[in-house]
């Protein structure tokens, strides 16, 4: 456990204070949401920043509000609360499924939506103790020279591990990000760089404070997740598909690439073509309990099933 003498634990009560604190510790802070991911990474020595800024005391980040335009979900809303939110249940059942797919009920009582969106990318060779990573010879993502999972490539293919991100991207959601002196809004999709080394496109001290899901778009959605057990496990493949009232189709695939794999089209397009695009885009490697080839193959099966799920909701 970290008992570094310089350990700092800060607990701001406002977003403004949080961002200010981050500015004061610009190179050595981490924001802490629920912590179920970050803290385990810290125990394993993958994060040793001395200053933790725990956001859980910021009341504003826990709010869910609805307008005609947006469902606005505070970044610190716990996944368990999201799953039971009446607007989510009524308007965005796919988001309910995605939240429910994360971890276990115990995890979901602490883990937050913002935290899940920014859950660190995962790899069999990265999510290990310091001793283990020394023994295997340190990969790119932890100060080594090569990717061990691929046997020597010079890029990191750690996988996107958020289950809610694919669904939110399918729902064309935005994030509201507090930066020093300002608040900016950007598509959820733009949070992700697609680079396993530095998977998140956020400036220093930036704080994701809310997720905005557009209302009134008439989304029909489907969500599926591949894992060995029915609880606890991180995803080996997450698929989210949406079709809006205008006939716009969005396919988002997670856990098979350093970032979300997004394919857009319309209901007029050949579905098989869209699925094939997603299949081709995914940079799957052997860094998971399921072999690469199987995960790749399942992209097609899961997406076909997602479309079938959507057809079934339409026919009802």
């Amino acid at each position, binding site marked *: 456990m970290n008992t570094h003498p310089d*350990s700092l634990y800060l607990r701001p009560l406002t977003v403004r204070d949080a961002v200010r604190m981050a500015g004061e510790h610009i190179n050595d802070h981490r924001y802490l949401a629920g912590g179920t991911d970050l803290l*385990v990474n810290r125990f394993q020595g993958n994060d040793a920043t001395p200053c933790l800024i725990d956001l859980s005391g910021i009341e504003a980040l826990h709010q869910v509000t609805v307008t005609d335009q947006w469902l606005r979900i505070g970044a610190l809303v716990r996944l368990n609360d999201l799953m039971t939110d009446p607007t989510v249940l009524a308007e965005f059942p796919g988001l309910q499924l995605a939240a429910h797919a994360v971890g276990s009920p115990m995890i979901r009582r602490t883990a937050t939506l913002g935290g899940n969106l920014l859950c660190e990318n995962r790899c069999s060779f990265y999510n290990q103790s310091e001793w283990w990573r020394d023994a295997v010879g340190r990969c790119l993502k932890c100060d080594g020279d090569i990717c061990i999972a691929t046997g020597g490539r010079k890029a990191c293919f750690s996988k996107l591990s958020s289950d809610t991100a694919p669904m939110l991207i399918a729902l064309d959601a935005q994030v509201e990000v507090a930066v020093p002196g300002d608040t900016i809004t950007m598509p959820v999709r733009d949070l992700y760089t697609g680079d396993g080394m530095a998977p998140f496109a956020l400036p220093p001290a930036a704080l994701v404070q809310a997720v905005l899901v557009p209302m009134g778009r008439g989304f029909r959605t489907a969500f599926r997740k591949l894992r060995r057990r029915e609880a606890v496990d991180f995803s080996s493949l997450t698929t989210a598909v949406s079709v809006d009232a205008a006939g716009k189709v969005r396919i988002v695939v997670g856990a098979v690439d350093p970032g979300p794999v997004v394919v857009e089209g319309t209901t007029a397009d050949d579905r098989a073509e869209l699925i094939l695009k997603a299949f081709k885009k995914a940079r799957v490697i052997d860094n998971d309990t399921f072999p690469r080839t199987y995960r790749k193959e399942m992209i097609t099966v899961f997406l076909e099933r997602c479309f079938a799920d959507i057809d079934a909701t339409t026919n009802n």
Partner: protein
Amino acid sequence: MARIQLTINDREYDLLIGAHDMLSTVIREKAGLKGTKVGCSQGSCGACTVLVNDEPVLACVTPAMRCHQARITTIEGLALQGTPHLLQQKFVEKGAIQCGFCTPGMVLTALHHVEQEHDNSVDGIKEALSGNLCRCTGYKKIIEAVAEYAQEVASGSTVPAAEVPEGMVGTSRPYLEAARKAQGTATYADDLAPVNALHVRFLRSPHPHARILRIDTAAALALPGVRYVATGEELPTPFGVLPISQDETAMAIGKTRYIGEIVAAVAADTEAIANKACSLVEVDYEPIRSFLTMEDSLADTGEHEKIHAHTRGTNNVHKKAELRFGDQAKGLAEAEVVSRMDFTMEGVNHGFTEPHAASAYWDENGLTVTTATQVTHYLHRALAKVLELPLHRVRVIKPTVGGGFGGKSDPFPHEMIVAHLARRTGRPTRTCLSREEVFLTNHGRHPSRMTIQLGADRDGTLKVLDADIVIDGGAYGSFGVVTSYYNGVLLQAPYKLDNFGFVTRRVYTNKPQSGAMRGHGAVNSRFAVESLIDDISHRIGMDPVELRMKNFLDANTLTVGQYRITSNGSRESIQAVARSSGWSERRGNLPDGRGLGVGCGFFISGSALPIIRNDLPQSTVHLKVDFDGRVLITSGANDIGQGSDTMLAIIVGEVLGIDMERLFVLGADTLLTPVDLGSYSSRVTFMAGNAAKDAAEQLRAAIANAVAVRHDVPQAELVFAGARVHSNDRRVDLSWEEAIEALTAGRGAVSVSGKYISPKLGGDFKGAGAGLSPSYSFGACVAEVEVDPQTGHVKVLDVWGAHDCGKALNPLAVEGQLEGSWHMGIGQALSEEMRYHEGLLVNNNFLDYRIPTTLDTPTIHTHIIETMDPEGPFGAKECGEGALHPVIPAIANAIFNAVGVRVTKLPIHAEDVLALIKAKAAHNEPIPQRP
């Protein structure tokens, strides 16, 4: 450091803590409340669950500072003025507690669910508990306890606890210590760490096979707070559980043999300092060629150095075990149908929820070690040997143990090291392994590969079995020589086979060592043989239940290898599961993708031969009764959550006609308790139970004699029942205390000693001793699965299990053992495996090593079969291991029934099932047996 105020269980705390300390650390180490357990330190097991402002949270991943001024309820806070919470009572009454390590977290999670959520159906409860792992119970009794509590909360009326009838044997009752476990007051090894103990941490090898050229401990020693740094040469004496495999030292000497082997150990004031010091120890290694696969180790090593110099050949074969009866080549040539298949099984780990933990101190009595162990006796001997002490200067205490399953049945390096460091520093020492270290310590089931041929006639009569087996022992011996035999010999039943042979080669590899795990040695080969039987039934068109019925051995017979079979409930077992699963009506009439499969099992009920040849009984039990009438039972048997202390009390109570209140069990403390060999080979009920019965009968005779003399009544007239001793005509009718008064008059406290010695058994050939047991257990399972033909995903929907335990001394406990065994088998069948990358264990935690959650566990239907074993205590024999055997093949055979593919690899991965389905389609074979 940071200051924090907390209210825990209505008491206010003002503490100075590390700014980044987790809540679990603060609760356990600062507030001293040890009821909160830590099983994984990463939020994957749920053992550490506490309520923060009435919400359950995982204390191991919750920063303590977040809880500043919060109200916290730990398991200790639920009972009101000493009265357990109703939910805790339900856990006790329903038998929802075995080892008890997951119980605090499970209770708190369940309590919140029932109070806050609306879905208290079984599915709702399963969902709610799916983040809390239990390795013992298979969740069935936990769900029952929660469901009944929920029903009572909803209805406002209490379902009274089933009245426990007066009798002892055959009456369901909770474990003696269940209430303590439910309330978090049972103390496990790490809870008992001595005050002022130094923390011991280990430096582990990053190389699978490497010479150690130099170790420099100077920088580590210079770190403030470091009290000692030890290296291998200080403890040069080898040890191992088997006398023939003394091949391990406490720390590596000269070279390391697996990634994770201990190279140096530090004792320091805090865990953090000890960890830091480990990183400062400098070691120069010279890697040498490593042997990571069974093929590597079977092959000639050429110019490369063998893993162990003592092995005979020029390869890394540790043991070759071979026995043959009849002529297999001839049998196979003559058999009308022969099924031959190659099988591969990955290694699996016990996954007990309590990590290894131990502490040590020295005083005027010599060395005392308190440790989570199944084998106090063998550890006693090993500590004396390695620390070069007379046996009478070593005391080993077994506290409450959070599960073992064979994983705590060896003497371990960390136990030697804490003792050594306590001696060197003059301070008590403690250590608790991380979950990663537990996996590296391993001793789990051997990875195996085997080719087995089974021949039969077209009428279904089994004629011949020949098995060629290789098992991967990892770096050291452990129980491996026994495992080598068990893989083969335990195939000679439950079916009559006149022509039977096997050869097993156990190889050393540069990986964490394999050892004994629940169902020891025979689980993998049983899966193989039951799959072959299924194949033969399919090929000759005979119902697999019928085929098995035709081939079962009878009771009171000898096997081909001269095992003496006494009681035998094979037929009753398979009939029970066939009946309750609707086998004959439903099989063949299920929807697409669904299938039913059956498998059987066979296991020893205690090894008839002790590990260390000597003339001591295998178990000795002492009883002492003094003026107060309480009977103290002392036994070296290790209760590790399987309920053996309760079993001893039941047997003594039955003989003496007294209730639990008058019985006290003191277990497994080598200073105070007579020798029992330990909890392995499913021996305790049979052997310690018989020793307890012997002792109780002696005590009864002594009491009868005293009463007869004092009250002038023939001894034969006396009845012991209902805590009274009376003559048949009730002319003499004494309370228990009056009878004890007669016994102790002029004599004082009376002690008696009972024993169990196995009868002489077995044949007169080399290897005849392997698998000998005074009795054997039998069983059967039917599984129903659903297979997704597009993904290969297998879901087990139901398991019907039956097990012949001779006589259920405590049916509630027997059910718990069976359900836990089936659950563990489901894990090995579908989701559990130890995966390596170049000798480095990849999935060394409870996130990636996948023990089935509530949601992965099917509905389990439990049948106890009783056959009244002639030599078991009151007819009892084992129930804790053998039940695991049939469930894995039942699942595999159900997959065949569902989609027509034969799976020969464990675990059964979706990707493999899918590949088989596709291969079958490519051959244009229609999926046969479409139910």
